[in-house]
């Protein structure tokens, strides 16, 4: 009877493995299941921050000299592996030329220098924290830089009343992931300090997926048929600011850009 027993055990184990495999395939069980808010949604509440050099350049890049010699290494360009899937940003030919021009003149042209609102997705990976406050009908995302803010509508999608710097955000849940559809973005924002740009046809779909208790995985798919030949995607982890009483502080940078913007219009001291 030993052979029959062995055969029975092997058969049931094989059956079990097949059942298990089928189960795993069917449920697509994610690696991590976040704690829930009181209304049963994945809990994304908290202060988060990206830790990379994406704001310098979305694509992989070596370290480089900064634009201001007197600031030396302090304001030099740190290196980065890049956050773009495939490391390629698929510009249409005319747009590729504009990108090169942007990059060569970025200090003059980058809206971040003027303390302009950063737009989406750049607001996410500026080197400053942002805070997610999750209400049942709306999710607020408050960014430290320039007091930028977005309200993500979690009800039935609504239409934007007009174009804006931070766009119009409609969100919904797909399992563990918060999916945010961002439209009606003005063309005046950039993706980074390397001159990567877009038109007013920009459409961004973001995905925020809890990865562990203190990390999220952030992905953004960028579509803009006026500038790019196909959609492309960036992805990066976001890290929770875990210090006690972590708080976003005021970063009203308008003051710091005024000399640049209005200095030439100031009264010159009379001789």
């Amino acid at each position, binding site marked *: *009877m030993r052979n*029959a*027993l062995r055969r*029975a*055990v092997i058969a*049931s*184990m094989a059956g*079990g493995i097949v*059942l*298990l495999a089928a*189960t*795993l395939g*069917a449920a697509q*069980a994610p690696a991590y*299941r976040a704690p*829930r*808010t*009181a*209304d*049963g*949604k994945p*809990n994304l*509440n908290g202060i988060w921050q990206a830790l990379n050099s994406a704001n310098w350049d979305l694509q992989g890049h070596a370290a480089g000299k900064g634009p201001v010699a007197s600031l030396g290494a302090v304001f030099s360009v740190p290196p980065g592996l890049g956050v773009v899937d495939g490391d390629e940003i698929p510009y249409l030919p005319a747009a590729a030329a504009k990108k090169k021009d942007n990059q060569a003149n970025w200090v003059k042209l980058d809206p971040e220098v003027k303390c*302009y*609102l950063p737009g989406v997705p750049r607001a996410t990976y500026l080197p400053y924290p942002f*805070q*997610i*406050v*999750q*209400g*049942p*009908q*709306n999710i*607020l995302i*408050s960014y430290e830089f*320039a*007091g*930028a*803010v977005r*309200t993500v509508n979690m009800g039935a999608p609504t239409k934007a*009343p*007009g174009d*804006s*710097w*931070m766009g119009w955000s409609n969100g919904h849940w797909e*399992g563990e992931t918060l999916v945010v559809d961002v439209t009606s973005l003005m063309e*005046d924002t950039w993706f980074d300090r390397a001159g990567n740009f877009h038109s007013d046809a920009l459409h961004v779909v973001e995905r925020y997926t809890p990865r562990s208790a203190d990390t999220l995985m952030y992905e953004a798919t960028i579509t803009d048929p006026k500038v790019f030949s196909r959609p492309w995607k960036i992805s990066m982890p976001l890290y929770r600011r875990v210090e006690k*009483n972590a*708080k976003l*502080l*005021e970063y*009203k940078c*308008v*003051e710091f850009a*005024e*000399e640049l913007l*209005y200095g030439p*219009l*100031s*009264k010159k001291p009379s001789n």
Partner: protein
Amino acid sequence: MSHRSFALTAALVAVVAALSVALLAPQVATGQNQSSAPKATTAGKTWTPPRTPDGKADLQGIWSDNTLTPFERPKSLGAKEFYTDKELADLTRRVRAGENTEGAELGAANQQAVRYDLELYGFDRTKLRYTSNRTSLVVGPEGTVPPMLPQARERNAERNAQNKGHEFDSYANRPLSERCILMNQERIPMTPGANEGNLLQIVQGPGYVTLVHEIDHSTRVIPTDGRPHIPQNIRLWQGDSVGHWEGDTLVVDTTNFTNLTNYRGTGEKLHLIERFSRSADDTMIYQFTVEDPTTWAKAWTAEVPWTKTKGPVFEYACHEGNTMISTILRGARVSEAEAAKKGK
């Protein structure tokens, strides 16, 4: 098959079956559905607000503080703190008919103050209304802000004197609102603007209440865990706010203002206590107490009813669209050049 092998097989199948049931179980939402029905009220209360999922009073929504009630009581009313309903109805009728009454805060709707035809922007005079029976938003027998202390008068006079004759020299000489650093209607304490659709959106999450003012997209993310203020040497234009709940009332304490914030001539010792409580489905009572021992001998309090309203809340990109500063400064330089030419 033997009895023992059957049992072993059954056990293995049971384990695998249990595992697959666990994995296949739908990820149901935990937590009860949010109830919007008011709970049983205690004696004396007429309305209890709905709860957020984490059990706090729900203050969420889009609110407007628009009102005809003036900030300070007109002198002719003396110590009269409240209008009767009849008096209010009469005043409302007169204001809507186009009269400029002393007891109404008309602001930009004031016929003498018209610079823009506000009807082009959707302003409808027939919608002007009082939101309170009070004769002024400042409460109390006087209904006015206390007189300034001599030291505050001197401090402000000195500041004005420094700027006198230099008002158009540079951006630094221009008002904070013109520079899009601190618009008047984004300041705290929050007070009604005249006829401006300055909406306020409240979103609540666990441990936080957030207020987004449409004007200059001014955002306050207020922790409600009663934590201490940030260190005293960190000064912010809008100060540092910490909140806690007293029953269904949100109480917010703000300090750490800069010495240039200058709310009504105050200095950096400005201390603001705000109370938010929802008195009806469409009404929030916003009450605030202001104190600054270097500006007033005593604290004073104002009460502003808010009304629930429909959005959308627009993005107000003040700085990005600011052509005012450059135009004003350029104009000043042109004037100076012309004056210099004439002088030659």
